[in-house]
């Protein structure tokens, strides 16, 4: 393993300005709200006002002038009334039963935005109210359940022989709160098809949802991602809903329809992180050796299945933390409640279970009187260890290293000792956590998806072809760097094609920390294949052996002699042969095998590792917590672009600190979300977080491009329990529920 070195050849490992950066810092970048379409209407959604009920009637005020308002209900749907995803249980527009308070029932469009708002006030939906189920522990509708077992026959004996430590941990909803709300435009086409422009992560999700909804063939749909103002999972599946709505309006109106949610509507209606209740029971030896784990995890899926089965799957697969257990039985179920469907949010089930296991490690440390860092170091996974699925770790494991780096960087040992003696009204504490995160889709996901991506030759270099979206994390820049190095080109001579489902290969959704590793790896192979073809072509043209031709810095050479600039070769090749386009399939490492039926095997090809140290000050008068210092160490395999990679770590860490300290949704007893505004759902400002110390480590993943493995979600997993550990250190109280709001801290301290 090595720390980032500054001097390297090529684009990979350097931090050039992001390719879309100049447009973003000058205001030139065009987001959906900045685009207008001739003859466009604006769309709005008529929603339920009860969490559970039977629709009796949609009443359109007869006194209102509806002539220039387009109205759509479920009866207008030409295809199937479903939001196509894993299960097709969610209707695009409710027709009989509503299952959450924001469920869409009808749609309106009008050219005049003021009249549209008026129109919305003149629609009334009569609903016979049914009793909503809001407590997941009382729900009897199970969307999906999982059990993972490792040597379960020894569980009973292990619990009989060793010290048993139990705890229950709770987390609530978390809102993605991307700063650009959900936004799409639908343009009807003469062939009966539809073109969508939108803010989204997964253009092919939308593409397929529209085919089902509108009964269209593949060629009648085009979905184009425009510059996207943040996603974090919130624009993984929801864009299929709003795109479906805009498309229904546009088809009926025969005009373009633009839909942009108002902030309150976005927060109330769209997906959030799954709440969870997690019971842990562990058997531990007196020296701190972890022996056995039993866990029961219940996640709240909301009204429809959407992505819940895969969120729960990823959650349960990480529930044992980055530790070795001899015996384990982990049960998880995700259930229905009458709240808007919960969905993808950075971390995807792992921030929940990592909060539970890492908070539980604090409990174990207290019970045994062992320093929590030492407890983690002692049990941290190493090469050769097995996960509860039986997966044997064979490479790129950095659990101990990240702990050691962060302990040194944060001055953990000194502060642990010093703060332990603090008295008075302001108490300081330091906490540490260890997290890991599987990169890419779970289990056989990538194999089933068969992602494809590639490159094509341009007259000055190459163009990257995929539907993997840049939602701020830097996909455009990172793909360009990887392709540039594989081709021996300057970064400026590589571009990334517009993200359009009618033109690009399906590289899969932009989720699951898979973009750099899985899609980037596929692009890198395609670029290498193109390089070989061009080397052969140069060899022919210049009459030299192909094996001696290489390209660096945009110049082809052989035996140390420059032959021709890349651009000249590219132009000549394109003139002679028309085009050069290479699409590769993702190649899954054959040794990585998983059994979906038994949940045994290699759930992920590799894991990222991260440790976080958080230093807090707790005010015992106000029970407020201030963050004094945050240090992270993160093994990313290889940082393709260190500044962007640090940006992922820092941004994810602050989202996680918001989860730990500030962010909480409040619901009334009828399933209504009460805080739907940025004023009352508070995310961190620049003043809420301290300066951060970010260390990237590079422990390469042998099958990853340039050694890279997934990164995006990992920083979200560990910081919340590190805060719990720090508050425990400061106050002596382990608070097993976040956010650690002043009222929660007060109740714990006074208990």
């Amino acid at each position, binding site marked *: 393993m090595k720390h980032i070195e500054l001097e390297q050849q090529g684009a990979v490992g350097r931090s050039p300005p992001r390719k879309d950066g100049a447009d973003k*810092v000058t205001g030139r970048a065009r987001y959906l709200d900045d685009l207008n379409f001739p003859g466009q209407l604006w769309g709005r959604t008529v929603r339920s006002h009860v969490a559970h009920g039977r629709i009796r009637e949609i009443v359109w005020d007869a006194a209102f002038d509806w002539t220039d308002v387009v109205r759509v209900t479920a009866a207008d749907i030409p295809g199937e009334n479903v939001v196509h995803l894993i299960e097709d249980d969610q209707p695009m527009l409710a027709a009989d039963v509503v299952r959450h308070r924001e469920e869409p029932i009808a749609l309106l469009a009008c050219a005049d935005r003021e009249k549209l708002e008026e129109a919305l006030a003149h629609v009334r939906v009569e609903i016979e109210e049914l009793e909503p189920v809001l407590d997941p522990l009382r729900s009897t509708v199970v969307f999906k359940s999982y059990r993972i077992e490792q040597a379960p026959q020894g569980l009973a004996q292990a619990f009989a022989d060793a010290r048993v430590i139990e705890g229950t941990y709770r987390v609530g909803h978390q809102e993605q709160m991307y700063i650009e709300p959900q936004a799409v435009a639908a343009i009807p086409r003469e062939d009966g098809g539809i073109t969508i422009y939108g803010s989204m992560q997964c253009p092919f999700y939308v593409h397929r949802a529209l085919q089902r909804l509108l009964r269209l063939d593949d060629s009648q749909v085009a979905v184009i991602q425009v510059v996207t103002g943040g996603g974090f999972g919130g624009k993984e599946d929801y864009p299929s809903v709003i795109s479906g709505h805009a498309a229904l309006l546009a088809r009926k109106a025969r005009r373009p329809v633009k839909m942009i949610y108002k902030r309150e509507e976005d927060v109330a209606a769209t997906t959030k992180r799954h709440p969870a209740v997690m019971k842990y029971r562990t058997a531990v030896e007196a020296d701190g050796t972890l022996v056995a784990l039993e866990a029961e995890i219940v996640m709240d899926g909301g009204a429809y299945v959407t992505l819940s089965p895969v969120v729960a799957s990823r959650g349960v697969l990480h529930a044992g933390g980055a530790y070795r257990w001899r015996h384990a039985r982990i049960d998880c179920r995700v259930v229905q409640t009458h709240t808007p469907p919960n969905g993808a949010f950075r971390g995807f089930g792992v921030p929940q279970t990592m909060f539970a296991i890492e908070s539980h490690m604090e409990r174990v440390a207290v019970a045994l009187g062992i320093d929590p860092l030492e407890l983690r170091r002692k049990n941290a996974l190493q090469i050769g260890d097995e996960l509860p699925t039986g997966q044997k770790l064979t490479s790129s494991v950095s659990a101990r290293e990240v702990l050691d780096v962060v302990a040194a960087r944060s001055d953990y040992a000194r502060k642990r000792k010093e703060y332990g003696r603090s008295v008075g009204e302001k108490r300081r504490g330091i906490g540490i956590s260890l997290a890991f995160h599987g990169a890419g889709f779970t289990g056989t996901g990538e194999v089933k998806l068969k992602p494809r991506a590639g490159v094509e030759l341009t007259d000055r270099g190459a163009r990257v072809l995929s539907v993997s979206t840049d939602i701020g994390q830097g996909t455009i820049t990172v793909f360009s760097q990887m392709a540039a190095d594989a081709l021996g080109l300057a970064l400026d001579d590589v571009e990334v094609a517009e993200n359009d489902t009618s033109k690009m290969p399906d590289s899969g959704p932009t989720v699951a920390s898979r973009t750099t590793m899985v899609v980037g790896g596929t692009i890198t192979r395609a670029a290498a294949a193109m390089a070989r073809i061009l080397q052969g072509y140069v060899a022919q043209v210049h009459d030299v052996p192909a094996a001696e031709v290489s390209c660096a810095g945009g110049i082809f050479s052989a035996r140390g002699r420059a032959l021709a600039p890349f651009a000249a070769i590219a132009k000549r090749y394109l003139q002679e042969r028309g085009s050069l386009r290479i699409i590769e399939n993702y190649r899954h490492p054959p040794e990585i095998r998983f059994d979906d039926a038994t949940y045994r095997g290699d759930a992920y090809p590799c894991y990222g590792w991260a440790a976080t140290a958080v230093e807090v000050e707790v005010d015992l008068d106000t029970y407020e917590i201030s963050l004094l210092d945050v240090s992270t160490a993160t093994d990313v395999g290889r940082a393709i672009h260190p500044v962007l990679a640090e940006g992922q770590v820092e941004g994810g860490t602050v989202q996680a600190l918001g989860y730990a300290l500030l962010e909480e949704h409040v619901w009334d007893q009828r399933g209504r979300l009460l805080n739907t505004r*940025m004023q009352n759902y508070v995310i961190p400002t620049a003043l809420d977080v301290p300066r951060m110390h970010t260390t990237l480590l590079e422990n390469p993943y042998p099958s990853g491009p340039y050694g890279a493995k997934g990164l995006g979600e990992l920083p979200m997993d560990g910081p919340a329990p590190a805060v719990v550990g720090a508050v425990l250190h400061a106050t002596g109280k382990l608070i097993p529920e976040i956010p650690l709001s002043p009222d929660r801290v007060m109740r714990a301290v006074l208990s």
Partner: protein
Amino acid sequence: MKLTVNGVPRSFEAPPLKRLLDVLREDLGLTGTKEGCGEGECGACSVLIDGELVNSCLVAVCQADGCSVLTVEGVARNGDLAPVQKCFLDRGGAQCGICTPGMIVAAHRFLECGLPATNENVREAIAGNLCRCTGYAKIVEAIQLAAGQRS
């Protein structure tokens, strides 16, 4: 109504209570200024009115009549990026970019005011601008770098 926008005098017809944000975006074609919440919380619509940092979603255009307005489009000079914009590029201060125009305007205002670019002062200066991507670290670094280049 009259505004001087990014140094250029503009006159136009608009309802007096139309939001300055909408006038800039719809009537003057300056779409760099963004709407994130419409209630003055996120700061994506930050502009300067006579040098003061405001949320343009909370300003009726009549309140700005006759004033000088600076938007993100006015920060670059003669087509060249301003130093603070270059620093945002070098330090990774922009990710998704939707908060960036407002951040750039707030940063520009801070750099003009001449306060020392301590961590606290810089964070205070952008406290009204929410960013969900960066965790603010690289934005603070970028502004400090720009401040260092000025002095």
